[in-house]
């Protein structure tokens, strides 16, 4: 692997396998998967339900570890990190966006955004300032003091995006981020993601069932029977 390649490659997956055992039965989701994800990519992963989309996001996001093979992030292996190290790695490098937003119901919007910053060394003032900036970026600064219950789905998802980017991670993992939103809100969320990709250079991996959503990405990957089939985005 050349120096050059390492510069551009964010993720390097080598011979990755993932299987689950359900009772006595073993289910293989991936066998011998090798692939790279470059910096600044915006990838949409599509595929039938149960094909392993969430599983690959979990592997990339350091939530789950492969059964075999290696996963390297910026040239450093993450598949062999312990639970604690992995958690800290996530706090510094990955932002997560979920279908159902998963905001803390007891915290206000800005507190939700501040949450990941508790894991970094930072003063209270600095945390607040960065949370405000993040809310500003996703265009929802005016709702900073609202609880999730008081926000619409689209607004909640914007807060979730702000939470995902506030620690300035290199990559965002989005699992069906627009699955629960109407077209209009979905588009505006997707536009925000696009903006984050183009303007701030965030690498984004997004799972979606919606071809329209996928069209916001630079690249679409179709997952079927443990294999990725690449297709350049039309848009």
């Amino acid at each position, binding site marked *: 692997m050349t120096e050059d390649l390492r510069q551009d490659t964010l993720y390097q997956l080598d011979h990755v396998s993932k299987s689950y055992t359900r009772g006595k039965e073993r289910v293989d989701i991936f066998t011998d998967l090798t692939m790279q994800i470059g910096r600044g990519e915006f990838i949409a992963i599509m595929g039938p339900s149960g094909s392993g989309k*969430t599983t690959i996001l*979990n592997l990339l*996001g350091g*939530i*789950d570890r492969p059964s075999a093979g290696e996963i390297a992030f910026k040239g450093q292996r993450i598949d062999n990190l312990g*639970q*604690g190290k992995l*958690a*800290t*790695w*996530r*706090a*510094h490098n990955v932002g*997560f966006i*979920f279908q*159902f937003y*998963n905001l*803390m*119901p*007891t*915290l206000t919007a800005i*507190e939700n955004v*501040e*949450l*990941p910053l*508790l*894991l970094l060394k930072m003063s*209270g003032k600095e*945390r*607040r300032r960065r949370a405000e900036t993040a809310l500003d970026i996703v265009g929802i600064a005016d709702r900073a003091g609202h609880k999730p219950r008081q926000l619409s789905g689209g607004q909640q998802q914007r807060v979730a995006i702000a*939470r995902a980017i506030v620690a300035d991670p290199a990559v965002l993992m989005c699992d069906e981020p627009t699955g629960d939103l109407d077209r209009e809100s979905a588009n505006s969320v997707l536009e925000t993601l696009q903006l984050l990709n183009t303007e701030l250079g965030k690498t984004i991996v997004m799972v979606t069932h919606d071809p329209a959503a996928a069209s916001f990405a630079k690249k679409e990957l179709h997952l079927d029977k443990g294999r990725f089939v690449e297709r350049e985005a039309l848009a």
Partner: protein
Amino acid sequence: MNRATLVRKSLFRKKVRAILLILSIAIAFFIFGALGAFYKAFNSGVEVAAADRLVTVNKINFTVTMPLAYQARVAQVEGVRNVSHASWFGGYYQEPQNFVQTFAVDPETYLIAYDELTLPPEQREAFLTDRTCLAAGRALANQYGWSLGDRIPLLSNIWQQQDGSSAWDFTICAIFDADDDAVPTNYAIFHYDYFNETLAFNRDQLGWLIVSTTDPALNAEVSQAIDALFANSPAETETTTEAAFTQAFLEQIGNIGLILTSVIGAAFATILMIVGTTMVLAVDERTKEIAVMKTLGFTAPSIFAMTLGEVFLLSLLGGLIGLGLAWTLVSLAAESLAGFIPGLGISLDIALIALALMVGLALLTGLLPAMRAMNVQISTALGKL
């Protein structure tokens, strides 16, 4: 916002629930504090007993008297520094219900024996010289509104004078305090001689001896020597330390300690169950939130610590409120009960035990939920939706 804010907010996520839990914890600690204070005051006689003080009573029973001459004989025993004596007067003021704890004592030696009693020099002098003087304790004087110079007739429900009257006239010439709140001052003392010479029956008898030793290490020896002195006489004696004597007397009332411990135990069993089951439920309810926190990068130990912290906060809040309530009640009661239960108050050791109980409660009820929180699996919890 910081981690403490997180802990606080998640505790108060359901306000009513949190308040109810705090209330039930507060009640348990209130019961603990109040009963602890009463029990301690009740037992204070054992604690304030001087280490070098012995009590000699008639071997038959402490209500049976013995000859006055015993005082002088005991004074000869080696290792004895001071011998005083007292007799139960069975006094009441005006009405039989107005019970007044009164002892006929040998004044000079009595004040030496009980050197924790304090009174101004001129009052001490008056008490020693005036045969009809009644020296009243501060708590007793307050109870009946007596002050120096008052003339007080006291009636006895046991003794009679030669003329058939059972009233003795006294002047209050001294009011004594104690150097420690736990030392009772809810009684009065007066000259044995004044009492003895007017008695219709049972003259030249004393109730019990108060023996001070030169060194507490000699207590056992001195006790044996005193009892040997009167062995095989019509009035054999039994000498014990003041603490042991008081303890034995309290045990006559019953095993108060066991009763109170059972009640406190029941109160704590209640909150252990209520808080324990509720916290497990509270953690189960937010499995998904915990999974999200873990996804964001909170480590398992920090999730564990925050969950346990929540239970600690709960336990401390409830515990301190309860202890505060107990303190308020006990302080209010202390004044009006000073005559019956002197030294009522929440002492430092009660507060420290309460604090230990708060920690214990938090650990007992918090460890299981905290473990459950720590072990939440991100993929399964988020998969649940």
